[in-house]
Every structure is written in C-alpha cells, then in structure tokens.
C-alpha cells in the first residue's frame, strides 16, 4: 500500500523542478494577495483566478512530462498552424476595439498568443537541425521565419505582442551564436530605421510613445494611465500604504488594475520593500531558468530554455517598466500576478517546458 502511494507520489512529482515550483508558487501567492485588493469591486475575479491557476498547473504538469525530443517534433506543425491562423486573421479575422486579432475556428482565439510559444520552438528546432553545419545564411533563414509572423501580428495591430514574439525569436538567434558584429550592425540598422518605423506606426501607438515622453501633455486622456500609475508607485513609499489601503487603486484611479496595471496596486500597497521582493523573485526565476539552459543536453533544449527564460524576463521588465513610466503602454501582463487565464496558461506552458528540460538533462 505504501509502495503504491510512493509510486503515485513519484508519478505526480518526478517531472517537477522544485526550485521553479517554489518560486512560481510564491509569485502566485503574491498575485492572489494583490488581486484580492485590486478586485475589491469584482470579487468573482479572485475566484476566477484561483480556477485559472488550477488549470494552469494542470497544463504545467502535463507539459513537464513531455520530453524535449517529443516537443521538438511539434515545433514545425505548431509554427505552421500558428502562421496559417495569423494569415486567416489577416484575411477574415474578427475586429474588436479597432484591432483585427481574433479568428473564429469553432471558438474565437487569438493566434498571436500561440506564436509566443511557437516562435522559440520553431527556431530552436531549426538551429538544432543545422547544428553541425551552421552557416551564415541559416541566420538569415531564421530571421525570415521570425519576420513573417511578427509582421503579421504588428499589422493587426498588436505592437505589444509583436515585440514579445520578436523578442522570443531574437533570443533564440542570439543564443544560437549570431556573431556580435552582425548583432551590432542590426542594432545600428534598427536605430537608423526608427524614423521609418515611426511613419508606419498607428496614431494610437505614436500617441503612447509621445505620452511616455511627456505624460503631462494629455493628463486626462492618454497620459492619465501613466500619471496615475506613477503616482500610485511613488506614493507607496518605502513600506507601502498597507494591504487593501491603496487609495489610488480603491478610488479607481488606476486603469486595468486587475490585469496589466496590477503592479501599480502592488507597488502602492507594499512600497519599495514589496518591489524589491518581487524583483528578487523574478531574478530567482530567471536565474533558475538560465541554469537549466546551461545544463540542457541538446542544442534544441538549450536554445528553448534560454529563450523561454528571457521571454519571462521580458514580460516582467516591460510590464514593470510600463507601470513605473519608463516604457510605453503596451498590453503585456505581469507574469504570475496579472489576472487572466490565457496569459497564465501560456506562462505555465513555458515553465512546464523548462521543467521538462531540467528533468531530461541526463538523457541525450
């Protein structure tokens, strides 16, 4: 009987990475604490998030059981499906709030979400195939594989997601060893093409960048979000105003306070101390991820683990930067803390892959 129990326990846990599990659980706990305060007026959101977490853990557990070799077989199909759906969106997508991001395939989905995972998978797979005879033009092909979906997503328009997908792919290419010289050239080229990009931006996107540079120019309109969330962060001080006592949050000055701006609520109620705690936890998460990447057995696993880790970093950095007013407002959730099922499941999928890679490091 005891053997059975042990067997069951090991079936349940042998694929889990305890360090990741502990860090993620701590982040989730902090998330629930702050969500309880942020969702004071829509309490079912708290319960919904509990349900989301349960679902996300299920996804994580299943993913952690999938060996990286098997995962690499899915890379091409998922990428092809993702791009096909993006093309479908461009052709006959559903328009909501002025953006064409959704498509109905029986149920309404947002294919750009799929690309957040599909992109690093695909590129890691590609480089893995070419491992022994990697040549310069392989990087060019990789860039092309990256550029197509990014362009499709940017056109929707959904600049936030486009940047995240671009980031995800770039990380793989970076880890695959693109030479520093080329990267420098690309960076310079990007900087030089900025005026061109500016011309291609939508009005609302330009406005967001402009408001970042000078929020006071439009204090009741677009600048309102940034001004109010900055005030929330600043007025938190060193120790914060205390849980449930954030005036900015509860007097409804913070927009989207359950989702993208939940960090403003956190910052206001727990102050600098809370922020440092959060930074430390994210650092621990990223550190563990990079460590797993460094011990991964195959190029595919290495690239994938490295890229996933840096994507999680990007989420956290962009979100906190946006809320504290140093980055423009783009729709990026704070990993593990923001309310929302889809985002959480996507993140846990990533964590699950990390765990799988961590567990399979000895199998070559």
């Amino acid at each position, binding site marked *: 009987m005891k053997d059975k129990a042990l067997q069951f326990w090991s079936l349940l846990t042998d694929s889990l990475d305890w360090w990741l599990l502990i860090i993620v659980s701590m982040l989730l706990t902090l998330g629930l604490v702050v969500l309880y305060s942020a969702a004071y007026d829509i309490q079912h959101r708290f319960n919904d998030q509990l349900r989301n977490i349960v679902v996300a853990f299920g996804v994580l557990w299943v993913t952690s059981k999938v060996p990286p070799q098997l995962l690499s077989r899915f890379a091409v199909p998922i990428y092809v499906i993702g791009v096909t759906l993006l093309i479908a969106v461009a052709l006959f997508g559903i328009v909501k709030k002025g953006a064409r991001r959704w498509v109905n395939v029986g149920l309404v989905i947002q294919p750009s979400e799929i690309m957040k995972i599909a992109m690093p998978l695909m590129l890691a797979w590609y480089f893995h195939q070419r491992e022994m005879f990697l040549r310069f033009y392989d990087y060019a092909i990789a860039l092309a594989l990256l550029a197509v979906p990014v362009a499709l997503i940017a056109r929707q328009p959904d600049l936030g997601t486009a940047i995240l997908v671009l980031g995800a792919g770039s990380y793989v290419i970076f880890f695959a060893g693109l030479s520093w010289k080329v990267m420098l050239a690309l960076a310079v080229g990007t900087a030089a093409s900025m005026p061109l990009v500016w011309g291609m931006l939508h009005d609302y996107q330009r406005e967001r960048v402009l408001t970042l540079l000078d929020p006071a120019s439009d204090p009741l309109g677009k600048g309102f979000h940034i001004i109010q969330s900055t005030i929330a*962060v600043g007025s938190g001080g060193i120790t914060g105003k205390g849980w449930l006592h954030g*005036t900015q949050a509860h007097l409804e000055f913070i927009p989207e306070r359950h989702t993208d701006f939940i960090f403003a609520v956190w910052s206001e109620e727990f102050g600098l101390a809370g922020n440092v705690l959060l930074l430390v936890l994210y650092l621990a998460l990223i550190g563990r991820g990079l460590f797993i990447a460094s011990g991964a057995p195959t190029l595919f696993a290495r690239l994938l683990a490295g890229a996933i880790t840096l994507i999680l970093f990007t989420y956290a950095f962009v979100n906190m930067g946006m809320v504290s007013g140093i980055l423009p407002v783009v729709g990026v959730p704070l990993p593990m803390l923001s309310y929302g099922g889809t985002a959480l499941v996507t993140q846990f999928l990533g964590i699950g892959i990390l765990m799988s890679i961590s567990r399979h490091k000895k199998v070559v």
Partner: protein
Amino acid sequence: MTELRNPQIEIRRFRVRLVVAGLFVLACFGVLLARFVFLQVIQYETYQAAAEENRISVLPVVPNRGLITDRNGVVLARNYSAYTLEITPSKVKDLEATINALSAFVEIQPRDRKRFKKLMDESKNFDSLPIRTRLTDEEVARFAANRWKFKGVDIKARLFRQYPLGELAANVVGYIARISPKDVEMLEEKGIEANYKGSEHIGKTGLEKTYEKELHGQTGFERVEVDAGGRAVRTLAREPSSSGNNLILSLDIRLQEIAEKALGDRKGAVVAIDPKTGDVLAFASRPGFDPNLFIDGIDQANWDLLNNDPDRPLLNRPLRGTYPPGSTFKPFMAIAALTTGKRTPYQSISDPGFFVYGNHRFRDDKVGGHGSVDMVKSISVSCDTYYYQLAVDMGIETISRSLAPWGFGSLTGIDLDGEAEGVLPSPAWKQKRFKKAAQQRWFPGETVSIGIGQGYNSYTPLQIAHATATLANNGVVMRPKLVKYIQNVRTGQRVPTDTTPVRTLPVTAEQLEVIHRGMQLVNLEGTAASVFRGAPYTSAGKTGTSQVIAMKQNEVYDEKKIAQRFRDHALYMGFAPKDEPRIAVAVIVENGGFGSRSAAPIARQLFDFHLLGKRPDSLPTPIKPAEPGEENEPELDRELVPELEKEAVR
C-alpha cells in the same frame, strides 16, 4: 566549405551568451530598481502629496425610475423617498458589535441582520449596504445625534419602489429587485453597465423588466472632493441625471380588478383586448403575489411559500400557461373551413351523437346528437361531430396552415417578456417534438380531436384572446400591447406605442358574419344563453371545456368522482358589441368544469363594466384614479441630508 562544429566549443560559447544574458537581465532590473528608488524614496513626498490631492471622485447620480400608471392615471408603480441606515463593511472593524450598538438607536430585527448578511455575501467589499430601510424621523434624529460613534455607518436618502395596489396586476407590472451578478453580466454584455453605476435595482419580471430601458433613465454624475476616508466633502460639478420615462398602460385597472376578483380563489387567467387597437384592457392571472416582497430581497420563508405552492402563483398564466382551447377553437376551425373552401355555411350534417373513425368512436356531448347541423348551429350548440368530420375532411396540414395566421402556435408579440408559443399541431411539429421514430409520425386518427380543440392543441389565454380580437376586428391583426404611451417626465410629452396593423387576413365580410352569427347565438340561445340573459348589448362568444385527463372510450365524465386538479378547465372567448366590438376576451378557469358555468360569467362582468360602466355587486367601490399631482415623482431631496452625508466645507 562545410565545417563541422565542435560541440564542446559550442556549449562553452552558449554559456558565455547565458552569462551575457544574465548580466543584461541584471542591468535591466537595476534600471527598474533605480526607477523605484527614484519614485518611492527620492520623489516620495511629491507623489504622496499627489495621491492625497488625487481625491476628486466621480459619484453617480441615480435617476428616478419612471412611474407606471394604468390608462386612467391610477398609479401601479411609484417611488418614494426614505432614509436608510447603511454600513460599509470594509470600513467597520467589528461588524457584529457595530450592529449591536446601532440597535440601541434604531430598531434592528433578526430579519434585518439576516438580510444584511445575505447582501454582504452578494456584494462588493467597498459597497455601502442597508442594514435598515425606511427609518422613521425619530430614528434618523436619534442616530444623527450619535453618529460620531459610528465610523463607516451612514444615513442615506434613497428612493424606494412601491407597488401601491399590491397583488393587483402584479403579473403585468412585475417587480424590480437588487441587481444580481447575472444582471451585471447582462449589462456588461450590452455595454450599458456605466449607466447602472449607483443603481441598486433592476426590473426582474413583467413590464419592469420588458421596459427596463425606458424606466431606468440616464445616470448623471457628480464630481466631488473626497477626504482620506473616501467620504464626499464638496461637490465641484454636477451633471444631473434624467429620469426614466413613465409608462401609461392600456390596462384599465378597474377592469383588471373585476377580472381578478371574479377569478377569486380559483386558478385561471383572463385577457381582455380592444380589438381595434390591440390595447390590452385586462391581463389577469390567479393566484397572484405581492410584488413589494421582492424589492429589497425576498426573505426565505415568503419565497418558499410562493415558489413551492402547487398552485404556482408566480406563473403568469395568460402569458405562459398553455391550455387546450376546447370548443373555443371551433369558430376558428369554422372560418378556416370557409376560407379554404372545405365547407359552405349551409352544408349540414346529421349528428348521431358520435363520430366513428377507423374503429374508434368519438363522443359528442349530447347523447343522441344534435340532429341536422349547419355551420351556424355547429357553433351555437357546440356540435363535436360536425368538427370531427370537418377536421378529417380538412386534414392536419390544411388545419395548421390555415390557423397559423390567426396567431395560434406563434408569439403574439405582446410587449411582455417570456411569452410562450403554445402548440399548433402539425406533422412537422410532431417530427420535431418527439425523439423516437415511432412517435414522430402523425397518425390520421390524431387529427379528429384537433377539430374540437383537444389533442396536441395548446395555447396561451393571450393567444386565444388575440385570435378572438382578430375575429372581432374583421381579420385585421393588431399586436397586443400593454403600454399605450411612453411619457417623457420632463416635457410631459406622451409618445404612443406602435398601433399599425400587423397584417390583414384574407377573410370576407360574409364569411365572418357566419361565424359572428353563430357566436351571437351562443349567447342568445346556445351554451351561454343563461349567462347573457338580459344583456342590453349584443355579444358573440363561445364556451369551451378542455380535458385535463383523457377519458376512456364510452366512459362518462363525472365531475364529482374526479379530484379537483384533474377536473376539466372551463373556457370562454367572445366579444361585444357584436357589430362594433370594443372588447374581446378570453377566460380560462382551471378545473372549473363547464365553460358556461365558470368562465362565461366572468366575461359577462367584463362586458358589463366596459360597455355600461356597471360594476358587479360584489365590488361596489372602484379604485380611485390618482388626484392630480399625487402621481408626481417625489424628487429625492439631496440637500436634505448634507450634514449627514457629507461634512460640509464652507
């Protein structure tokens, strides 16, 4: 040119890149940390001050809900202003102790505590919730003197909904109740949740629900300065709300009262329609309920009483109850026979008192039969055999096709949510209704009893009244409507609701006259003659009896032997005056036995009142129409309580 790579070197190179990535992450987080320190330590005072000043709050100004009056201005739903004692749970440390302390100044019943608990479970943490409603002036004064002792407890002036006539027409007016999470979802879906900021109630049933959009009004906003506790200190700007529109019904509440009182303790429904306009004059459902119970959340005991009652007082019978129409169906069968050319008025049958189809014998009411029967006589004596034969001759397809335009089996389009469709039987309907192949087929024998309004026939009293009104209105179909005017409160302007005919049925005056004549004879010498004896106006009608349980062949129906709830339903449909009809009715008395005995007398009372102004002897005093001015909206006096609601800063 192909150069194989050395995995060891590759891994080392990869690790270098990992370190670079790690440093990059650290650098980025360093920037964030610097930003946090800048905001939260160096600039703390500035932002702290900004947050303190950041206290201009926007408060909703809830609009007054529109009134509902009958066609003569009798108020059926109104608002009144009263004080409530409210607690904001998130601002109170020990709720139980606070409530106990409050009960020294204000009477708080265990019932109030229970309701408050329920409200808390359903509400948001930061809401202000009523522990007591309708405070007396004395209680207000007592609490005001001790207010400083209670943080998070306030007296608020609020508008309350009231249905002064109680049960009367409750099924029509409906009621409002507190907004539920489901309502919130609905509002969000429609994108109108902003207009419900501050609103606590929403229409749940009846006209209160159907006309929610008209009644609710437009929420206004007030920009106020709030203190550290979030309490309003000073009003900076106001965008006033605009009241919801009043509903002026086509209902005559006096006629409604007569109908409801006539049904009394019996279960049933009465619908009266003005055939020319489609105005619904009476729309009664018994047993009823008091809508006032629901407004602040019905208590469990009352809810169980209403919900578990086998007589189903919450069922809106005229709208949602469906019944076999019995013989009241015959005039419509007859007109269908004429329009489809299956019968001429003069074709007669010889009625032996039964009808044989296959090896089944269908009984007529009168043993031995009615002798020679033509169409007029078939209506006036209610000859079953005539209609058995007619149904077989027409066939089920023709029957359903030619009766559908009269509104049988489809929604009448009345302006009240939740209307039932009923069943106009047809092979297609049966195909859809049943799952098993054996049951899906239409058997020719099933057509026979369709002719006398039995079998699968099942209609709402509203549908029967509607079809009767169409018959009275020479085939011009009017949409039945309960609301006659929508009145703008500010301008007083009344906008009539749509009165254009829906369609005109292809019937000739000659064909209609045959049916009308037969129905007139019902009231003169036929099945309802005793009921309409001495009426100074002409009228037309048809009695009906519909079976609740099927009788075996040759079995004789004996009322006394059958339990009350299996007894036949009594029906009556008719209109008056016969030539210039002003009122068409359908009456159903559940388990009332023969239509002439229970249902027809109710129709007579309605005709007498509507045409002659004569009230039944049992109801000597009519409901008084409202005095002019009495129906005026009690404007909520917000200036009345500033010292209580706000700390006035001058």
